[in-house]
């Protein structure tokens, strides 16, 4: 049986109009994450690939959203401290300090000098911890696994120090409003000195492995360059901002905790590419080590909490068990929370990832009426859809690694 088959050539004119489309071919939509080794957590990227080149990249966030800000409204200030551990969980000590500082700003409370020095120590050790991970993970993203293991070894030692200080390796919950949970243990400062003496050679070794490595330079230089204007427009803070050449460090520009008394430099990048961000973090670790040395040398004696803030800081246990007044004070603060006057305050601290801000609204009483958290990682991620297109697919890993974000802080 004969069959007829009709073949149509179509409208040639119309096809010619689409010639460019036909030559360029199709693009491929690629879903990266939320569970993918490059995203360091639960970030999801909707990418569009033209061959191996990314034409579109849209970050999808919220997989780690826990409603921290709402949770805060239903608890006392001190009860919220553990929640701050889980913001930037690579530097929980720095988050604890930033939150306590925000509430103390609202209460117009000045903590004693020893407490301030301890907090500076906490912040800088947290910075070392976070940046070590940032460098290590960045190396791993570029394919250098050994660097990651070197930095992790150092972070293990740091966690042991945190454990001695706070009782927990990871979720430290160290600060209380008006002070810190306990004084530093005996001999601890000596062990911190040992640690910082040990971390510098490791940094030098990482330097040898990466900084002048041809492959590493080819992979990172000129990749993911953020211009000065973009960095400011997208609200980047911290190392990501400074790598683009903006000299903004809250420790210098709006000193808190007595940072003005310590001598340290703020490294500034020039091109804002991945390589600059790596160099900057490495240098910041060295500067933090400088600050830590000065704190250890000059740490004052005295109380580790504000003794005159009777309605804010619960006194140490031995006083509670021996004196009536302190017992009542302890009971009131435990049941009703630290009494913070009505009003509102915003405080930003220079955290390892950037400026972590807390906006606290109080109507009096033990808990916040409203708490708003400004997470630097959230801003760092917002630039992705501008930054990534035009790069190779493999560059995504390097760019994400160099931005050094934490989803716990981004999603909150």
């Amino acid at each position: 049986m004969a069959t007829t088959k009709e073949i149509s050539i179509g409208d040639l004119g119309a096809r010619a109009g689409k010639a460019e489309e036909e030559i360029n071919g199709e693009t491929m939509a690629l879903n990266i994450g939320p569970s993918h080794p490059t995203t360091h957590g639960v970030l999801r990227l909707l990418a569009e690939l033209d061959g191996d080149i990314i034409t579109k990249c849209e970050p999808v966030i919220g997989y780690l959203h826990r409603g921290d800000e709402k949770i805060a409204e239903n608890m006392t200030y001190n009860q919220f401290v553990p929640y701050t551990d889980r913001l930037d969980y690579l530097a929980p000590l720095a988050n604890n300090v930033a939150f306590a500082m925000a509430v103390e700003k609202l209460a117009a409370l000045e903590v004693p000098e020893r407490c301030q020095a301890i907090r500076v120590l906490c912040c800088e050790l947290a910075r070392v911890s976070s940046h070590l991970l940032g460098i290590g993970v960045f190396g791993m993203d570029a394919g250098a696994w050994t660097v990651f293991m070197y930095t992790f070894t150092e972070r293990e030692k740091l966690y042991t120090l945190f454990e001695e200080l706070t009782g927990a390796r990871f979720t430290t919950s160290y600060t209380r409003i008006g002070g810190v949970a306990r004084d530093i243990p005996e001999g601890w400062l000596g062990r911190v000195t040992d640690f910082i003496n040990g971390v510098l050679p490791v940094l030098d070794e990482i330097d040898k492995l990466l900084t002048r490595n041809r492959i590493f330079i080819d992979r990172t230089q000129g990749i993911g360059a953020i211009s000065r204007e973009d960095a400011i427009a997208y609200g980047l803070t911290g190392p990501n901002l400074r790598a683009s050449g903006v000299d903004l460090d809250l420790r210098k520009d709006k000193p808190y905790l007595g940072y003005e008394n310590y001598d340290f430099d703020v490294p500034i990048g020039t091109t804002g590419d991945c390589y600059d961000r790596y160099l900057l973090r490495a240098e910041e670790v060295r500067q933090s080590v400088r600050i830590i040395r000065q704190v250890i040398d000059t740490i004052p004696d005295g109380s580790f909490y504000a003794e005159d803030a009777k309605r804010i800081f619960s006194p140490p246990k031995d006083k509670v068990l021996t004196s009536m007044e302190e017992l009542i004070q302890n009971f009131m603060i435990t049941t009703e929370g630290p009494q913070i006057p009505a009003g509102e305050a915003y405080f930003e601290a220079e955290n390892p990832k950037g400026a972590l801000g807390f906006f606290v609204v109080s109507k009096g009483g033990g808990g916040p009426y409203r708490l708003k958290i400004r997470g630097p990682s959230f801003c760092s991620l917002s630039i992705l859809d501008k930054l990534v297109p035009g790069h190779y697919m493999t560059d995504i890993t390097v760019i994400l690694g160099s931005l050094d974000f934490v989803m716990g802080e981004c999603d909150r």
Partner: protein
Amino acid sequence: MTLFEAWLPVILPVIFALVMISVFMGMCAYAVLAERKICSYIQGRVGPNRTRLPLIGNVPILGDFLTGLGIFQPAADGLKFLFKEEITPGHVKLGYYYLAPIIALTPALTTMVVLPFGRYVDAAGVVQPLALANLDVGFLFILAISSLGVYGIVLAGWASNSKYPFLGAIRSSAQMISYELALGVSILPVFMWSAAPGSEYGMSLFGVVQAQETLWIGIWQPLSALIFLVAIFAETNRLPFDMAESETDLVGGFHTEYGAFKFGLFFVAEYAHIIMGSAIFVLLFAGGWHFLPGLADPWPAGPVGAVLSVLWFLAKIAFMIFFFIWIRWTLPRFRYDQVMSLGWKILLPLAVGNLVFNTLLIALIDAL
């Protein structure tokens, strides 16, 4: 008896082949262990040190020592691959999906056939190669067969019917094809020097090794050796060229959708390729089983000398494997386009230039 003698020429090669495959697979397993142990030491870790076999592991001092070395770990690794649930994703192309791991491993095992691994000097002083087959086209055979290895990867990427393996497979096939060119051209000077026109050895690897009795080719042909070394790094898909796997951006690359023993085959294939690459490098550039450059072989004639030559050859391979592992845990990874430009813009012109230079040199020597 006569029947046995008649069948002997058939039986013996089969036995030899089985022995060689077992030894080779054993080497693959222990190459994995070496990788894990050496990378641990490089990174300041300890590495596998818990796996314990019931009987040997309980011998007082020896057992603890071997356990600490992780000697029994490869057995546990292999068993794990066998006993894991055999998962086949619903979206794969079935036949090809199962075929791919086999195709990945087969070429590495096949090239083994022409690989001479030692020499036997009989009473008359005649040197015999120890190899399953001493083909005259030896190296051409290796080039031809090992190029097939890329099909395993391409097929895996295509049959997985998923985007990450697809990207990995495309990158890997482009990379392997590019570097094969540089690899092929880089070894031509070696054969031009080692086998004069009309010589009895032709392209056989045995001939190349015999030509290196006094001086290793790698020493006076360093450029060839370097290009070849870089190319086998790329051919084996090892870091810094592991485009095919590239675990931080492509998850697992071409074997993302593979699990259990199918993944095991890919895994073994990678190490098989490393061992083959090391062996070929040693044969071509590092004197094979010859002792040290400038020194006569201390091996006696007869079987003892043969065993010693094999062991020396294996020691050189072990060093090369160590080198592979050392590089992997030291360097970061190239980007795909950088790999391609290195291959096409640097290695290939270098290899061609090297070939032309050596050709002119030989012509000049002949003319004089």
